[in-house]
C-alpha cells in the first residue's frame, strides 16, 4: 500500500505530517528535513516520495494548491478508475488553520530573494500549528489500527 499526504503545498505542513507519520523525530530546524521548502520538487507537480513506513508502505507528499478537497476527490476517483482500491493508495488530506497565509507566502516565494525570507516565517507558522498536524497524523494511524 501507499500513503499520500495531500495539502495546499507538498513541501511544508504536508511534509511535516508525513515526517511525523514515519516516526522520525521533530528536528529543531525544519531545514534538516529532506524536501523542506524545495520549490523545484514541488513545481514538478508529482507526488514526492519520502520513505517507506514500518509496514513497507510508500509514503508520499503532494501539494495541490487551494482546493485540496477537489484534488482528493479526483485522486480517489482516479484510483477507482484504474481498478485499484484504498488498499493500493490511501489519501490523507492535511489541513492547517492558516492555509491561505501559507499559500500566499508560498506564492510570493517564487522570487528567490523572497523565498529565503519567507521560509523561516512558514516554519514559525507551522510550529504553531504542530498540535493540529499531530492530531491528523494520529487520526490516520488510528484508522490503520481499525483496518
Amino acid at each position: 500500500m501507499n500513503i499520500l499526504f495531500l495539502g495546499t503545498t507538498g513541501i511544508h505542513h504536508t511534509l511535516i505530517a508525513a515526517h511525523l507519520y514515519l516516526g522520525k523525530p521533530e528536528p529543531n530546524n525544519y531545514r534538516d528535513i529532506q524536501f523542506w521548502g524545495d520549490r523545484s520538487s514541488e513545481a514538478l507537480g508529482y507526488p514526492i516520495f519520502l520513505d517507506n513506513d514500518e509496514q513497507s508502505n510508500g509514503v508520499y507528499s503532494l501539494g495541490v494548491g487551494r482546493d485540496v478537497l477537489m484534488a482528493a476527490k479526483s485522486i480517489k476517483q482516479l484510483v477507482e478508475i484504474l481498478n485499484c482500491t484504498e488498499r493500493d493508495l490511501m489519501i490523507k488530506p492535511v489541513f492547517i488553520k492558516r492555509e491561505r497565509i501559507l499559500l500566499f507566502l508560498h506564492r510570493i516565494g517564487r522570487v528567490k530573494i523572497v523565498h529565503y525570507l519567507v521560509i523561516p516565517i512558514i516554519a514559525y507558522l507551522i510550529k504553531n500549528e504542530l498540535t493540529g498536524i499531530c492530531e491528523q497524523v494520529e487520526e490516520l494511524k488510528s484508522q490503520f489500527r481499525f483496518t
Partner: protein
Amino acid sequence: MKIIYHCFGGAHSSVTAAALHLGMLNKTRPPTKEQLMEIPYYDKTSDVDFGSIRYMGTDEFGHEVYVLGKKSMGNRYSAILMGVAEIVGKQDQLIVVNCMDRVNWSMKIGGFTSRRMRLVLLGRPVVTWGTQKAFSQLVNLVEITRLKAMRHDFKVQAT
C-alpha cells in the same frame, strides 16, 4: 487504457474533445448549436462537478474516455494524476489531456457567464459560438491523443 480530457469546468472544451474522440461529432465540419447541446454534460455541469471524473464512453479501440473540471489548476493537474497513476503502477494505462490551451476567449467568457454566473441565456450562445470557432483546434488535440493511445497499443502488442 483510460483517457481523461480536462479543462476549467469540465463542461465545454473537454466534453467536446471527448465527444470528438468517441465519434459523437463529425470531425470534418463544426457542429451546430443543437449538436453541441446533445452531447452529455455540455454546458450542463454545476459547482459540485469540479474534481469529478465523469465517464463519457468507450472508443472503438476499447479506450475509456472521461472528462474532468479542475478549476484553474492548469497543467499541474495532469502531473498530479499521472503521478498518482505511477504510484499505483498504472501509468501506462492513463493519458491525461489538458484542453485549456485550445480554449478561446469566447469559450472562457461564455462558459463563465453560463456556468458560474448562471446566466444561461446570455452565456450559452457565446460559448457555443466559441466552441464552433475552436473546433479545428479541438479536432487536432483529439487526433494527437488518439495517435498517442494507438502508439501505446502497438507497444503493448509488440511486447
